[in-house]
């Protein structure tokens, strides 16, 4: 973590099934934090709520002490500081270089976009 993260009372249900209820957590910059639990416990749902992939039903998530901004450009900037590796990763059509550099290309200014030419990949 390069930022602090505070989760308070996080709640999420799917079709009446309560997956997360009152989850609290506090993570400091540089801290390695493990979430352990059996399959279906809600570990992934928790990460998805923190990473903006799922909207929680209740509770709060604070990034460096502030809630996520509503302004789309500011939210995008915050979102780009959070990485997540999926359990079943998806590979884009194209070269290894394209897949490896996709994140960098997304964040780069338009003039510098495009896969790296001398990557050796």
């Amino acid at each position, binding site marked *: 973590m390069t930022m602090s993260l505070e989760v308070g009372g996080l709640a999420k249900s799917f079709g009446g099934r309560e997956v997360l209820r009152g989850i609290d957590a506090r993570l400091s910059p540089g801290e390695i934090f493990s979430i352990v639990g059996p399959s279906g416990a809600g570990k992934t749902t928790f990460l998805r709520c923190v990473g903006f992939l799922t909207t929680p039903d209740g509770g709060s998530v604070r990034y460096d002490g502030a809630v996520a901004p509503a302004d789309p450009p500011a939210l995008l900037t915050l979102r780009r500081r959070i990485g997540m*590796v999926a359990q079943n990763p998806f590979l884009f059509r194209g070269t290894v270089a394209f897949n490896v550099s996709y994140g960098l290309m997304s964040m780069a200014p338009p003039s510098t976009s495009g896969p790296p030419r001398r990557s050796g990949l």
Partner: protein
Amino acid sequence: MAGDIVGITLLSLLISGTSTLVATLVAVPLGTFLGLREIGSARLLRTILFTLYGLPPVLAGLLVYLLLSRPGPLGFLGLIYTPLGMVFAQTLVVTPIILGITTSVVASVERRVKETAFVLGADARQLQVTVIKEAAAGVLTAVMVGFGRAISEVGAVFIVGGHIEGKTQVLTTTIITDIQQAQNEHAVALGVILLVLGGLVYYLLYRLQERTLP
């Protein structure tokens, strides 16, 4: 005889190619739009379009005939029994097919691609571009299926075109009239041309599809 076969073949290609092109221009952007959105109205629209997916060509031909015939609402255009009217009818048959497949392909690609692109920092526009690139091969399949339906279609073009010698004869309608007139050899020859033509176009589109893959 050879001259009329060439003319019939070229007209078949022209009508099927034009209707597939028009259907592609309408259906691919609309299908991409619908595939990218999961809103209620789009779902309803998709349900309606999937119903049209199975539209019988004869019924499409009948609808276009009623529209374009002299007393019909578009009768003043004078398109009945013309190649342009046949294009209109075939476009009506092909558009839902290309639209349905494109919507499904984009929606299925979107689900898989979206989260990966999202966590890698893609914004809304970059996400859409990535989804469209990933769906390109599937969209080409939709165009291939659409062309296959157009070139093999007979009911709609027969009703709207009227199978007028030297004017609106196409391969499929000529095969039917040949059989009715016991000109089986001629019908078989046209059938072979139809098969080769379809194979050739599929091959070209397949090569194009391969180029979109890594």
